[in-house]
């Protein structure tokens, strides 16, 4: 198997795991809103997105290991932007809640989902530095 086809396969795994996380997260949020569960079932349901996210992390690490040195540098620079950005978004949302924006609360869980997309978005910006866009 050539490097590029292996890289493509890892990209597909990573996208699929990311999609599985989003679907399981939204599904769990919807399930909580639409039905009543026992305490045990609620905890079990909450673990589903976490499992999908673990798969995503494994796929992402495999993908980055498969990349060449420039691609790895772009990914790591993107993570250096994405990680603090995600923390900043969570902090701002928390402060907004403390500031009394209680009406946002029912949509809280879905508001946090876009934070996940922060993971990928800086890749384009960091890739642009080297006049290339990955994937």
């Amino acid at each position, binding site marked *: 198997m050539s*490097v590029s086809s292996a890289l493509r396969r890892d990209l597909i795994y990573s996208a699929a795991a990311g999609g599985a996380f989003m679907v399981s997260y939204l599904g769990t949020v919807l399930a909580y809103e639409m039905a009543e569960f026992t305490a045990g079932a609620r905890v079990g349901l909450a673990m589903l997105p976490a499992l999908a996210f673990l798969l995503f992390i494994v796929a992402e690490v495999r993908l980055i290991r498969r990349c060449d040195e420039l691609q790895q540098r772009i990914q790591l620079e993107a993570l250096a932007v994405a990680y603090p950005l995600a923390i900043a978004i969570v902090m701002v949302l928390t402060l907004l809640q403390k500031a009394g924006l209680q009406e946002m609360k029912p949509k809280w869980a879905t508001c946090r989902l876009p934070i996940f997309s922060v993971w990928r978005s800086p890749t384009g910006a960091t890739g642009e530095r080297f006049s290339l866009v990955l994937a």
Partner: protein
Amino acid sequence: MKNRLRVLRAEYRWSQAELAERLGVSRQTVNAVETEKYDPSLPLAFKIAQIFGKAIEEVFQPNGAGGPEPGGAKEEGQ
């Protein structure tokens, strides 16, 4: 860091994709090195030099003056 990658690649009549295949990196990486937007790691720089049968300083030169001349005499008595 300056380099002669484009010139050497033209001498060998290799495309960026061909060189990338030989180096085991992506074509984008070869392009970024060639256009001097990215300085390769030492192992990759050595690999590039080795593929063209050159010493590393014959392919890569530091920016500005002060770099050793390719094939130049070494200073002695240090």
